[in-house]
């Protein structure tokens, strides 16, 4: 695959997305799309219909200290297309994309587990990786401390 495809992908994305969205080509084969939380679902629909995206590699969520950032990594025609959105710390929710990409099921459960970001509309948000009786909060948040004191580096 050539960089030409990257440019084409970028163009298709730019033509179809909303005004609150930016598309950048960070390096060859890596496309970053930043969207507002409200237009996430629309962007996902565009990916599925216009680009016939099917392979959702994973979802990364991270705590920046002020907001939560959620990144959806897709593998489309030889490029990793990343959709970046964010949500405030006092309202840690995003819309679930399970109905468009069923492979998001486990990743959204994991996100809920370790960072406490709730995917609204997910059919089954049980614990995935932490113990069933875990009650010490969300370990990947920046302000989290284990109950026994500091972590040893």
């Amino acid at each position, binding site marked *: 695959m050539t960089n030409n495809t990257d440019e084409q992908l970028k163009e298709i994305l730019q033509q179809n997305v909303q005004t609150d969205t930016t598309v950048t080509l960070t390096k060859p084969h890596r496309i970053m799309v930043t969207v507002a939380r409200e237009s996430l679902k629309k962007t996902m629909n565009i990916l599925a219909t216009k680009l016939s995206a099917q392979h959702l590699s994973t979802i990364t969520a991270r705590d920046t200290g002020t907001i939560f950032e959620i990144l959806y990594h897709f593998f489309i025609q030889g490029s990793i297309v990343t959709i970046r959105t964010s949500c405030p710390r006092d309202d840690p929710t995003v819309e679930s994309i399970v109905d468009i990409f069923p492979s998001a099921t486990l990743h959204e459960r994991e996100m809920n587990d370790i960072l406490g970001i709730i995917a609204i509309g997910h059919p089954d948000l049980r614990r995935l990786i932490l*113990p069933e009786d875990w009650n010490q909060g969300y*370990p990947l948040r920046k302000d989290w401390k*284990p109950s026994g004191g500091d*972590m*040893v*580096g």
Partner: protein
Amino acid sequence: MTGIVTWARLKSPWILHMNCGSCNGCDIEILATLIPRLDAERFGVLLKGTPRHADILVCTGPVTTQMKERLKRIYDQMPEPKFVVAVGQCGSSGGIYQGSYCVEGGIDKVIPVDAYVPGCPPRPDAIIDGLVKLLAKIKEGDKNDK
């Protein structure tokens, strides 16, 4: 009578392998002891699937919070006398995962351990050596009892 039992135990130690959160490095090395090159079965070692048949529990991994209770349960299910071998750095002390929020740090934090095989992961020959040393220890301990 005890003489015969000890003799039988020394000649055919049945082992149960348990992964308590290991990265698999130690686990494949344990299985590699069974292949023709090293052939642990010449010491009568037989890998069993259930704790009720096992004399020796071979554990790997730093014991994650979720496996802690399960490790105890498996240990309780084994018939007496029972022996535990901790394989690998993680099994011995928690290794590289020390300090994590869901790692206990070493098999001996949860159940008593009779032999340690250090290494990350230990070579298959080191694991066999560990087992043979444990058998020698059992023999020695039996003499002292008499």
